[in-house]
């Protein structure tokens, strides 16, 4: 009984699928943007791979780029000032860095909204009070929070770095419907080629105390390294813990293999 019924059910699905096969067009709708879209360029960082470390000087420069450039529009909601001790700052430096920011607060006497000096336990304050304010200031575009940006985009750090250095004039053969509209900027690494953010970096925009190069590529590389850290501050610790656990497990597994061979030694199987 099961087999004849199953046969009929199977036949039903197969005929429905055959109808679907012969009614679905075999060509895709042409997507002109594909031809102009570029694959992200690779950026090598010290935090890559199986033996990573944080390049603290580079992360400090990246944080300076974030503070002086990106933070005008982009928040960093998940990062607290205390976290930057990991970038090689002393406790005093963390305190004075936090103090250079004003964070939202309440006036203890009147209960009115107020601001106070930042403390190490505070998060980086957001540039806008809310989404409406952010959109109003940015031609109705919302600048995304950057804390997780290198994990939240296809292509990760490569995509971010490529986007930052990838602004260019639209190619001459770009179809009219793909031309950047008012307030938009052409960037072949962005999924739909045009984004609201203007080219954020210009050569020499940020001056580093250690005299490191400050062309667009160098600054983009530094801020990318910093945002890899903000996305996963435990990345380096994670990989090295992994090696320790792996070493332990290799010894454990070696011993269990010997136990297994020993127990089965006289048993043909």
């Amino acid at each position, binding site marked *: 009984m*099961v*087999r004849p019924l*199953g*046969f009929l*059910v*199977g*036949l039903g*699905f*197969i*005929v*429905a*699928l*055959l*109808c*679907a*096969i012969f*009614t*679905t*067009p*075999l*060509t*895709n709708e042409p997507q002109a943007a594909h031809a102009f879209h570029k694959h992200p360029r690779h950026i090598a960082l010290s935090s890559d791979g*199986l033996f990573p470390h944080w390049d603290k000087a580079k992360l400090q420069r990246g944080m300076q780029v974030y503070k002086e450039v990106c933070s005008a529009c982009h928040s960093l909601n*998940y990062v607290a000032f205390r*976290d930057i001790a990991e970038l090689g700052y002393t406790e005093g430096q963390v305190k004075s860095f936090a103090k250079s920011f004003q964070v939202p607060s309440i006036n203890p006497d009147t209960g009115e909204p107020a601001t106070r000096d930042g403390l190490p336990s505070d998060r980086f304050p957001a540039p806008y009070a809310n989404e409406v304010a952010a959109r109003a200031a940015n031609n109705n575009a919302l600048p*995304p929070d950057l*804390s*997780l940006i290198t*994990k*939240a*985009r*296809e292509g*990760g750090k490569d995509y971010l770095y490529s986007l930052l250095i990838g602004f260019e004039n639209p190619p001459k053969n770009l179809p009219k419907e793909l031309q950047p509209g008012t307030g938009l900027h052409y960037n072949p690494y962005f*999924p739909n080629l045009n984004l609201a953010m203007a080219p954020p970096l210009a050569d020499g925009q940020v001056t580093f105390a250690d005299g490191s190069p400050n062309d667009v590529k160098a600054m983009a590389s530094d801020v990318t390294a910093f945002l890899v850290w903000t*996305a*996963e*501050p*435990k990345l380096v610790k*994670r*990989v090295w*813990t*992994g*090696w320790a*656990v*792996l070493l332990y*497990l*290799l010894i*454990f*597994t070696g011993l*269990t*293999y010997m*136990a*297994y061979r020993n*127990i*089965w030694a006289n*048993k*043909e*199987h």
Partner: protein
Amino acid sequence: MSFPWAKNYEPQQPLMKWLDEKLPLPRLVYNAVGAGYPVPRNLNYFWNFGVLAGAALAIQIITGIVLAMHYAANAGVAFDSVEHIMRDVNAGWFIRYAHMNGASMFFIVVYLHIFRGLYYGSYKAPREMVWLLGVVIFLLMMATAFMGYVLPWGQMSFWGAQVITGFFSAIPVVGEPIRVWLLGGFAPDNAALNRFFSLHYLLPFVIAGVVVLHIWALHIPGSSNPTGIEVKDEQDTVPFHPYYTAKDGFGLGVFLILFVALTFFSPNLLGHADNYIPANPLSTPAHIVPEWYFWPFYAILRAFTFNFLWIDAKLWGVIAMFASIALLFFLPWLDSSPVKSSKYRPLYRIFFWVLVADVFLLGLCGKMPAEQPWVILSQIGAAYYFAHFLIILPIVSRIERPLPMPNSITEAVLAKHAGTSSASATA
């Protein structure tokens, strides 16, 4: 249950004697996974995956309980609470990544366990009930994994919940009210998130309960083996402990090495970048893709694009997707061949490997966007999937001429060893 030559539990220590009289729990364990359970001596490494699935379930429950101590099931703060676990909780990043990749590892071992059952005919009499309970566990796992993926409340969580609960709206007339009732709203929101969290915490314990039934049902006929020949006497078997506890211990080590490599070195390899963006009901991701373990079923769902027999294409897709799993319940009766192991089934063996390739093809189609050539490949793949189980398998099991089989497990083992020793002698 079990075989007459199974060892009997004889407690030596006064405390254990006392315990055995009042509550024979040590006896239960001894007979289940101790020396009291005789197991065929010829099991290969594919018989490790049951124990590994149990280990994966235990890891998921333990890491999940710890995560629940720090997670907040509220649409306003769920995403933040996951980042809190990743950044501020002691070793929270490890617990969360272990849980996230533990789900993938669980599905990897369960898929291998299922395909082991398909290759060696483990679903056949007298083990039909073991197979049926296994399919129940698989369904519960899918529900649990889906609801767990919603909890971080990222973009893919939200839109995945939107798509999956949308299945119910394909039911004619009452579909939409059912969807709204299940979600507690018109779209996934706080009500849905809370009930998903509640069920995500409940279902693993239901799975653990069905696992007990699965093992119980297994112990009545005893374990199958690669020859598919039933145990005849004592020399066909070895006691589970120490023989298979040792072998499973080694298997567990290999499993944990792969698990650790994935968790510590590439924890987001199997995830999706969009789930690190907080859920936003106003912004649809370019491609809504489920987790990899759902890809083949997602491909079957999307393969139906034609309103055949006045039934909406969407409803066809939903019915077919559920049918693709539900047909596994009928497998013991669809395959009428008395021979279990594919080792002695030359024709079925070919179709088994075609099915494996077909499932991989469907998986790839489920991953890719709904564009050609993936649409037509998923349609062909889905048609073959149903043809394999509902048409090819019943016919093959009727017309196939099985290869000659040894008389017993011991004979098969000794023949194998005689073969290898003579081969080395001539070399």
